[in-house]
């Protein structure tokens, strides 16, 4: 499969999945309003693509060290985005559940809170998985960079 076709296919699957992920929140946003319209953090999956240092240090005496440090910058950006997204998920669910469960009592309140707790757990797991993939991309970029140092 050529790259544009692969990208298109990935985009379709990604959009379908994002819709599924946000289905609950979007439904609430349309019917009830919500605290945020959009995400206020970077998507971890996009972060490694913002870096391009594979050949930046070729020929320099400190090439290996620079590659390592650049990898750390990439990893730090991924960690920051992860922290931001985890906070966003917590805040979103805290506010929306507060509204959603308002006025309920007894079993219905318990069920309402349990449902939101499950959403939170699923969301956090998704974020942490994304972090792993993004961090892996940073490490791969670092390896390519160091490979360029020794291959020169």
């Amino acid at each position, binding site marked *: 499969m050529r790259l544009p076709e692969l990208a298109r296919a*990935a985009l379709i699957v990604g959009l379908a999945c*994002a819709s599924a992920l946000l289905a609950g929140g979007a439904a609430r*946003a349309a019917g*009830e*309003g919500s*605290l945020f319209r959009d995400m206020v953090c970077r998507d971890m999956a996009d972060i490694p693509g913002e870096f391009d240092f594979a050949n930046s*240090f070729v020929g320099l005496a400190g090439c290996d060290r620079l590659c390592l440090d*650049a990898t750390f910058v990439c990893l730090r950006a991924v960690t920051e985005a992860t922290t931001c997204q985890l906070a966003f998920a917590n805040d979103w669910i805290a506010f929306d559940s507060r509204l959603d469960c308002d006025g309920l009592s007894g079993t219905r309140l318990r069920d309402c809170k349990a449902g939101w707790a499950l959403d939170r757990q699923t969301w956090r797991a998704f974020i942490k998985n994304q972090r792993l993939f993004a961090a892996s991309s940073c490490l791969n970029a670092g390896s390519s960079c160091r490979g360029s140092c020794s291959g020169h």
Partner: protein
Amino acid sequence: MTRAPLPLLRLLPLCLAALFALAPLAARADEDPNDPNSPLGSGNPCFDASKVADSLSLESSAEDPNDPNAPPIVTGFFSALPDCAKLCDKAGKLCETFAKRAASCETRYADDRFRFNVRTECEGLHGADLKTCSQQFESAHQTRSQRAADKLAAVVSACGTRSADCAGRCNAAP
């Protein structure tokens, strides 16, 4: 209100694969035409702080049941809650927190770009030579840092306005 279940788990592997495949294709979010040649790349891994306040909703709109052609009725997100004003205040502070987070990322990344420019372009230099060499990158560094600070000031103000608007709708609530 019945909560919609999240049909996520079945699609999670596909989703992660798609996001992973798309990562290298992502558009560069904030390329600076005045400073395109960072050894780290020309992209920006930070969220744009100026978009935080606009992302805050704090209101919902619904069709007028008596007149579908009338403009939608806008109500505050927390209007019906007894602690509405407190929640609006909290939402405003949250807005500030996310704005600060984004601005801090931009400031740190400006420092990173400067540091890597100096380490690559001024390698082996010391003293006055190093200082002279590094000065060529100082302007872009200052511009980026200042831009982050300016964005933050504007967004903090916008967060305050949104929070006050939200609290204003509390008073209008039945």
